[in-house]
Every structure is written in structure tokens, then in C-alpha cells.
């Protein structure tokens, strides 16, 4: 098998090759370690490559398969973790200069679960500094520089899970784990043409991941298909007593009848207004596909102060999570000029306002749950534009758009959301739809997303110049 045939294979395809003996985990690991070095690093997507431990894990995976021990679909499959997730013996820099020497000698739950599932950790992938929590307005707010978008390296990936997005989109890892507080999985997934899943709050333990905003933070898979997201979520989901927010409800992606049609989709009225023409056209094409696959109805997003609620809660929680850091004046060491004083504002946020936001949040949750429950998914464009230049500020681009309000509705309520590519927009860059589901409705979302992917033809598309034979 030519190595170039491996870079963009799905998890299922790589697993089949492993079990047929056509490749070994050691071979896959060496191949993707090379891709991380030659493809990932130039994209500023890599924080640390862990070649020695990866090769040990791969050798173990091969030995286990040889003696008949199969840990499931991720057995022997390489992957990368966003660098806010602790791995013993490796740097965990949180993407920030003040933490560039940090080593956390404990294992995050998500890495532990993936190791138990037989997956092979290749390394840590880049993040916007402190997952963007201190504020930033420029793509270069990262220890590793601006993560470049494989679809056009003059553009940015979006943040804050920028390394996972770039590496997964470029075929430098088969899948990755990102984190999301206000859109940090789904937004870079949209701009890089991959599929990012922000599962129900509490599905995935955050133990060992940098806390930013406790009541919003989520970890989740960033993959090249919805099916891959389902396989990864199944491996990482589950209760963890070390994370009190983690859910007790079990999650299974496999072993159930997957749906391919008869979906009921609610299109959020007005959500495509004001987005780029190509984003709108691709969104309408996606809606047309759903119409052929079932029923589509218009739904109104309930009128709530989504942006204000999200801002107040994040300000209070981020200010608390980083109180010692802020008190010590260390925010001035961060790369983003905006970050130097931005979160000091938390010092002036009355508890009453934080609690008021959380009280309104309960109303939002009740209204959104009522709205979403009858549907397989609520649909809106994920972002109003395609990726923006890597050397320019994106300030003000996202906050005022209607798609961002839909995203915030999911952020605030903890409902699951998935970003699914819809096609190519301006300058050939990817566009995406966000699908929101009711609490614990991941499989309904994933089935709808898979059905959409099968019809758009996106799964066969690759960023130009990122296959080995093209590069040669």
C-alpha cells in the first residue's frame, strides 16, 4: 500500500487495514509521526511530538492484536490531543508563553480512555493561548504561532482548537481531541472542512484538561467524518468521579440501527441572513438534501440575551479559574495584546450579575430543550464567512452574526452540536452547517450528519497539496 493512500483514511478503514495485516500500528504510527513533522509543523499545528511513547504504544497495540486482544475500533489508531490536556512526561503548555515549561505529571481522563481503547497518542496539538480565554483578536495568539489552514495556508484555521483542526484536515493525524467553551471545536472544524462534535455537557470527563469556564467547557472529537466522531465519542464518554459534571448515562455509537433518512430537521429562521453568499448557497443545498431525506420545518430561535448571558458567565468563571494568574499580573506575558487587561474586568463583575445570568440560563435551557426535542437536529450555518487571513485581526467578525447566536444557544444549554462541511465557498474554502440536538441526542445528530456527508460528496475532498505524492 502506498503511504499516500493512508493519510486521509477513516478510522474504520485504517482499522480494517490493521486487522487484515496490510498495515501495522507501528507502521501507521511511523507514517503519521512523519506527517506531523513534515505537514503539521509547517502549519503551526504541533506543540510536541511524542515519538518514543507513541512507538511503544503502537508496539503494544500490534502485540495485543497478534494475540487476539482487540480493544475496539480505535485499537492501534494514532491521534493527537489539544495541548490543554495533561499527559504525564510531556509538556502541557496551554499554548501560552507563561506556561511554556509546564509539565503536568498526571493523565487526563480523555487520554486515559483513549489509551485503554488502544489508540496511540502521537503528540500534543497547538492551541490558542489559554484556549483563547483571556481574549484575543489575532490568529498569532499562540505559543506556536498562527495555525495555518490547509485549504489555503494564507488563511487561519480559527480557534481555539486550531492545531487539532489543521492536523486533522491535512491528514497529519487520523483524528484529534479538541476542547470547546464558546465554539472552539465547531468553529475551527467548520473553517478547515472537518467534522467537530461538541457532545452534551458532561458526556466527556474534563479531568486533566485546563479549566476555563467550568459550566461551559467540553472536550470532543475532531475528525474527518461524523462516523469517526461517533467512534471516538464512544471511547471517551462516560462518568468519571474526578469530574463532578460528568454524566452517568451510558453512550454507545455502535451496535444500534443507524438511520439514513426520515430525519426531521428544524431550520432556524433567519440564520442564513447576512452570511456570505456562498455560505448561504451551500447551507440551502444542505437543507435541500435534508428535505429529500425527510421533513424540514422553520423554527424560531427563542428570544433571549444569549450573547450577554454567555459573556457574563464566561467572564466570571474564567476570572475565577485564573484568579492567581491575573492577580500576579501575568496576563501581561501573553502574546495577545487584548489579553493583557481584558479579564481584569472580572474583578468588577458583581456576583449578582453572574447569578442573574445563570438564572436566565435555566429559562434558556427549558425553552431550547422544548424546541429541539421533537427534531433530530436544528440547523443553521456554522459561521457567516469562510476562513479569514492568517495575518489579520478577526475582531468583530463573529460576535454579531446570527449563526453565532445559534452557537451560543448550544454553548449555554450544554446541548450537543456538530459542525458538518457543506461545500466550498469563497476562494475555495470550506463552509459548514451546525446541527444542534436535544440533550443526549448525539446519535440523532451523527446520523443526520452522516446522511448529509454521504450526499454532499465532501468526504472525498482533500486540501490541495497535502497528499504525499502531490507534495513530492
Amino acid at each position, binding site marked *: 500500500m502506498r503511504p499516500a493512500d493512508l493519510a486521509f483514511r477513516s478510522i474504520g478503514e485504517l482499522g480494517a487495514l490493521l486487522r487484515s495485516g496490510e498495515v501495522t500500528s507501528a507502521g501507521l504510527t511511523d507514517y503519521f509521526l512523519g506527517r506531523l513533522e513534515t505537514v503539521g509543523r509547517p502549519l503551526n499545528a504541533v506543540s510536541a511530538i511524542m515519538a518514543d511513547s507513541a512507538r511503544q504504544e503502537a508496539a503494544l497495540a500490534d502485540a495485543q492484536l497478534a494475540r487476539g486482544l482487540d480493544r475496539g475500533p480505535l485499537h492501534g489508531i494514532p491521534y493527537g490531543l489539544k495541548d490543554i490536556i495533561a499527559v504525564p512526561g510531556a509538556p502541557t503548555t496551554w499554548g501560552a508563553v507563561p506556561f511554556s515549561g509546564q509539565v503536568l505529571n498526571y493523565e487526563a481522563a480523555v487520554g486515559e480512555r483513549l489509551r485503554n481503547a488502544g489508540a496511540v497518542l502521537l503528540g500534543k496539538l497547538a492551541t490558542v493561548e489559554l484556549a483563547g480565554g483571556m481574549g484575543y483578536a489575532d490568529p498569532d495568539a499562540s505559543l506556536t504561532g498562527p495555525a495555518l489552514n490547509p485549504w489555503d495556508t494564507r488563511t487561519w484555521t480559527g480557534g481555539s482548537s486550531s492545531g487539532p483542526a489543521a492536523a486533522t484536515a491535512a491528514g497529519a493525524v487520523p483524528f484529534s481531541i479538541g476542547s470547546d467553551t464558546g465554539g472552539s471545536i465547531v468553529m475551527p472544524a467548520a473553517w478547515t472542512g472537518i467534522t467537530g462534535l461538541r457532545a452534551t455537557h*458532561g458526556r466527556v470527563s474534563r479531568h486533566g484538561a485546563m479549566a476555563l469556564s467550568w459550566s461551559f467547557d467540553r472536550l470532543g472529537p475532531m475528525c474527518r467524518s461524523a462516523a469517526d466522531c461517533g467512534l471516538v465519542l464512544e471511547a471517551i464518554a462516560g462518568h468519571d468521579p474526578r469530574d463532578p459534571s460528568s454524566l452517568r448515562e451510558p453512550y454507545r455509537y455502535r451496535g444500534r440501527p443507524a438511520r439514513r433518512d426520515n430525519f426531521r430537521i428544524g431550520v432556524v429562521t433567519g440564520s442564513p441572513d447576512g452570511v456570505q453568499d456562498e455560505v448561504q448557497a451551500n447551507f440551502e443545498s444542505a437543507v435541500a438534501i435534508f428535505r429529500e431525506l425527510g421533513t424540514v420545518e422553520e423554527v424560531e430561535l427563542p428570544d433571549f*440575551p444569549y450573547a450577554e448571558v454567555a459573556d457574563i458567565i464566561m467572564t466570571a468563571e474564567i476570572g475565577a479559574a485564573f484568579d492567581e494568574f491575573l492577580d500576579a499580573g501575568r496576563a501581561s506575558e501573553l502574546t495577545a495584546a487584548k489579553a493583557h487587561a481584558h479579564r481584569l474586568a472580572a474583578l468588577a463583575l458583581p456576583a449578582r450579575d453572574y447569578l442573574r445570568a445563570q438564572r436566565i440560563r435555566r429559562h434558556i435551557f427549558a425553552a431550547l430543550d422544548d424546541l429541539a426535542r421533537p427534531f433530530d437536529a436544528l440547523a443553521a450555518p456554522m459561521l457567516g464567512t469562510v476562513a479569514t487571513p492568517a495575518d489579520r485581526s478577526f475582531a468583530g467578525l463573529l460576535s454579531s452574526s446570527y449563526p453565532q447566536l445559534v452557537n451560543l444557544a448550544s454553548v449555554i444549554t450544554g446541548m450537543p452540536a456538530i459542525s458538518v462541511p457543506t461545500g466550498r465557498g469563497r476562494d475555495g474554502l470550506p463552509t459548514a452547517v451546525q446541527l444542534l440536538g436535544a440533550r443526549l441526542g448525539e446519535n440523532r445528530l451523527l446520523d443526520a450528519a452522516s446522511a448529509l456527508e454521504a450526499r454532499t460528496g465532501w468526504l472525498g475532498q482533500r486540501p490541495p497539496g497535502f497528499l504525499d505524492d502531490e507534495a513530492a
Partner: protein
Amino acid sequence: MPVTSAAGVPGPAGGVPDPNAGLPGSGAGRERLQAADRPIPAPAPAAEIAAQTTRLVTLCHGAELSAADQGELERTVLAQVEAALVLRRYPLLNSDEPMLGAGPEAGWAL
């Protein structure tokens, strides 16, 4: 301890008059003083609140901020004050509890 209503007005406590009624510090006293001695001020404009708050934050923080950082802080505080004012216009009942988190402890059974 006098029994007071939610509005701070002394209520019947076994028919015993509140000995502190009318004095500063008790509910009725506060209300009377506010009404009689100084008018309740109208809310300051958000920009004024933000400017004063920014000075306080800078004072509390203790570190010297550059002019640019000071400007960023003031813009952020202003946005925060405006957001809080938006939230205060949203009607809530006294019994509306906060949703502290979206996990299992947060009232998912709604």
C-alpha cells in the same frame, strides 16, 4: 430580630412592636431616610459606571497598566456593564434558581 417582609417593612412578630422601627438600619428607617433626606439617584449612564469601575479595578489590581491596556480594560468593563444592564431587564421571579452548570446536578429534569 424583627420579622420583615420582602420589602423590608416590619411585619407582625407576635403582636410585639419592632423596637427598632423608624431607626436607621431597620427596613422602615432606611426607606424613610431615603425618601425624606436624599432622593434615590437615577442610574448612572453605563459609560460613567464603566469609567469609575475601571479606576477601581486598576486600584484593586495594583499593577500599572499601559494606556493601551487601560483602554482595553475600560472597553471590556463598559461591554460588561451594558451586558449586565441587558440582563437586568429580563424578568425573573424571586424563585428562579441559577443553573450552575449544565451537568447532572443542574436540573436536567426540567
